[in-house]
């Protein structure tokens, strides 16, 4: 007879929503703001005066697929 083997079931579980939510909201907002600056600032809308941000990230904006001028 084979001896009983322990099969340690360290079955990973989902991260509780309550723990994840603050991260998702705050970090999510900041990250989306970063994408906004690369993708749309001084194009369709403008938070900063002038065209410097737009011109600086110009090539990236085009190649990443955002509408640009």
């Amino acid at each position: 007879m084979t001896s009983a083997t322990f099969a340690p079931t360290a079955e990973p579980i989902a991260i509780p929503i309550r723990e994840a939510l603050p991260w998702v909201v705050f970090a999510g907002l900041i990250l989306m703001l970063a994408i906004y600056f690369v993708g749309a600032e001084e194009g369709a809308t403008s938070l900063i005066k002038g065209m410097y941000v737009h011109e600086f990230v110009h090539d990236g904006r085009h190649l990443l697929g955002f509408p640009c001028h």
Partner: protein
Amino acid sequence: MVGTLLIRGMLIGIVAGILSFAFLKTVGEPAVDRAIAFETQMDEAKDKAKADEAMAKGMSMPKEDPEPELVSRPVQAGIGLFTGVTVYNTAFGGLFALAFALTYRRMGDFGPRTTAALLAISGIVAVYIAPNLKYPANPPSVGDPDTISMRTGLYFAMIAISLAAMIAAWMLRNRLVARYGDWNAALIAGAAYLVVVVIVALALPTVNEVPEGFPAVVLWQFRTASMGAQIIMWATIGLAFGAWTERAETSRSGLRLKAAGF
């Protein structure tokens, strides 16, 4: 836990950004340069036509000052491109980690690597491929500045709808798995996503602002370069994040076993 995942995602995003930059620098920039050359040619032709017209009327042409260049081309194609692409990739790495934190062990009985790979595939389809089939990436000189607000609005609306449809499709898949099995549930959910996105794409207005005579080859090169950069980003994030998280998880459960006296 979520903080660790977030930092992991953003670090991988930086790596993805460097890879994307190298790719876009070699494959994307030639197309951008050719598009700008076309634009310059068109502008010169327009100016010349205006000058000829003025000459014919016996007037002297008022000399227009060229637009002052705010950022030079080498900066745009170098550090500017690098900054834009790296910020974008890092941000997506972080957002990917947040999505992973929310969906891990909720998408089905998948380990970290499978979850990350499925997330990346769903992500590139929902956020880039579907919206870009309707509103493709455009090189410089394609696009009317007067319609930028409308085009940006439509593009982001398309992304939002496509992403919402993808999330709904995954929820549908999870509800159907018990009854129809893995394969069929996924097929039904995939078909549902496709139907929604196709209907929305047909309903939204079409934008065609490619100027007369713009070289088709340049447009194709530009769009394939854009697609390539997205594939690099999503593949790097999806594969590296999954592998790293799986490693971290097994070493953690290993520690737990050791602590328990195994």
